[in-house]
């Protein structure tokens, strides 16, 4: 997509116009901001709300915010939040019912009162995560009205990565670091000496229209090259890897691998990985009643395959052991998802690695399972 005649340059000092235009068009701009020692997503109305001059160090079970040596606005990698909190909120009312006379019942579907969101600073991996969740929630046979409604109206403004965290592995999952479409507008942030600007590539009619409202100039070949160099640098920094070509068969062959026993000892079943994951979509529904019994509500909440209730059926939980739950999660994410949705459930964002309180690393687990097979082959040979 890069290098089309629509590729433009927005100067750093004109970036506020992006927020102004988005707000003027009725969107709620949400994007990265620094809070509680992390770069989280929240409502951002001004360039000053962005994490200018901040970055972080990430590793398995560890995240440390730190100062950059420059004034980059998007010089960080993904933090604890993902966009799913807007499209698939942690808790949402589905409907309510009121008892009427003669034991009748009036049911009212919950209305979504939120204004449309403009997601600012979507990374390429997260853009793919949106597409993964689209396949789940916008399946034509049974679309989720809340998700579909919000997603349909949302504006997606990508910021391509200029650096990688230690936990990133998008290059393994073919999800980044450069976004190749599926966005409204893609930005690449360039800092070169005193120059600070954004290469902007519109990807939809809304994106073109948005760009028209922001001061910009046409990009030249040097700008295009700078943008390519930027994401190339990020790709080169990536250290983690999953060999995905045969991962499905590998995992299917290894239901009884001894690595699952090691995870039984290590995994906390705390569910942090699934909550942080931008594609995990599991939920539960709870019915609440008021004291009179005349008013009931049905709520949907995030749930996780790591909880006992999640696989509870008559007689108990189907996955009572930790190993069975971790195995379910990992194999679903990397293997059965392919059978179910025709795509991987993992986008290589690395959140599950960083936000695991005891630093369990799925790339390492896959590598060890693979290595154990090779060891076994060597022994048998």
């Amino acid at each position: 997509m890069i290098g089309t005649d629509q590729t433009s340059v927005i100067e750093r000092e004109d970036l506020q116009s992006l927020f102004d235009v988005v707000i003027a068009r009725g969107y709620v701009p949400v994007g990265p901001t620094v809070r509680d020692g992390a770069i989280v997503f929240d409502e951002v109305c001004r360039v000053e709300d962005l994490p200018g001059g901040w970055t972080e160090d990430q590793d398995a079970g560890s995240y440390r915010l730190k100062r950059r040596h420059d004034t980059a606005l998007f010089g960080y990698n993904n933090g604890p939040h993902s966009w799913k909190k807007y499209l698939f909120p942690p808790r949402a009312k589905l409907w309510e019912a009121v008892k009427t006379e003669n034991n009748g019942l009036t049911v009212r579907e919950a209305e979504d009162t939120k204004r449309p969101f403009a997601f600012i600073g979507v990374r390429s991996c997260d853009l793919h995560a949106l597409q993964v969740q689209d396949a789940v929630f916008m399946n034509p046979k049974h679309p989720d009205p809340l998700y579909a409604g919000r997603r349909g109206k949302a504006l997606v403004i990508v910021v391509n990565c200029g650096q990688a965290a230690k936990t990133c592995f998008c290059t393994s999952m073919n999800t980044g670091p450069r976004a190749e479409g599926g966005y409204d507008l893609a930005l690449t942030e360039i800092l070169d000496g005193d120059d600070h600007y954004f290469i902007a590539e519109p990807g939809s009619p809304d994106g073109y229209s948005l760009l028209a409202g922001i001061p910009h100039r046409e990009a030249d070949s040097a700008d295009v090259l700078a943008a390519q160099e930027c994401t190339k640098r990020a790709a080169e920094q990536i250290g983690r890897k999953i060999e995905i070509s045969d991962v499905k068969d590998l995992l299917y062959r290894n239901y009884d691998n001894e690595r699952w026993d090691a995870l039984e000892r290590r995994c906390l079943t705390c569910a942090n990985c699934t909550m942080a994951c931008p594609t995990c979509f599991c939920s539960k529904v709870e019915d609440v009643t008021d004291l009179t019994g005349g008013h009931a509500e049905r709520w949907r909440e995030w749930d996780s395959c790591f909880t006992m209730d999640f696989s509870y059926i008559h007689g108990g939980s189907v996955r009572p052991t930790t190993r069975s739950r971790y195995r379910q999660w990992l194999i679903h994410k990397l293997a059965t998802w392919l059978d179910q949705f025709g795509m991987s459930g993992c986008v290589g964002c690395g959140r599950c690695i960083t936000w695991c309180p005891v630093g369990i690393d799925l790339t390492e687990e896959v590598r060890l399972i693979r290595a154990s097979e090779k060891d076994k082959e060597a022994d048998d040979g």
Partner: protein
Amino acid sequence: MAKKPKLAVWKFASCDGCQLSLLDCEDELLAVADHITIANFPEASRAVLDGPYDLSLVEGSITTPHDRDRIQQVRSQSKCLVTIGACATAGGIQALRNFTDVREYMDIVYASPEYISVLQTSTPIADHVPVDFELRGCPINKNQLLEVINAFLNGRRPNVSTNSVCVECKKRGTACIMVTHGTPCMGPVTHAGCGAICPAYNRGCYGCYGAMETPNTSSLAGWMRDLGVSDYELQRMFRTYNAEEPAFRQEGDRYGPEDT
């Protein structure tokens, strides 16, 4: 209108904080009183109606021979018995006596310890009588208490999650303080219910709600050791309000003060 169910609130060894959660319901309290006859709740009213009771809320642990007998009477008068709080569900902070010789303390504290009749241990209600539902917390969350009463009134199962506090942290959007600051936190092994208050204020979870459904205490303790937590501190972390709760007890027993 059908006859209103009768509610009784019973106190055993405890600080009263949990039963006060019921009074703390304020706005909802009148609605509760509309649908339930508060038949025996000395903290709220001197008017006491005789049993049997449809719903008994039991606060506190069993620490005396007298209470050990009294809980049997409470059970026999109660159709449904719900224990509320860490004392009633896990022995409470007073279960720290279980690790010492209680007579030594009596000799130090009281001028005439021979008048005191006390058990060597503080134990949860469920060790003595069958319990229909245990509501965790130190103190309990008033919204969860209302949910339990509500569920009882409507004949349904209460929506009380038994998973980790982490799920609540993530739902409210708190960035994990153990990951971002290296702050030791009991959240991953602790039962949800409080709404993950402490981490939202940059404090590690204290484990007020006791162990979650499948607590991997040894893995968490191992990680906290790597963060620099001493064995003495680890023992303190597992021996607070739920020291007698089996998973916490087992983990706390693994660390000795001699390592300080």
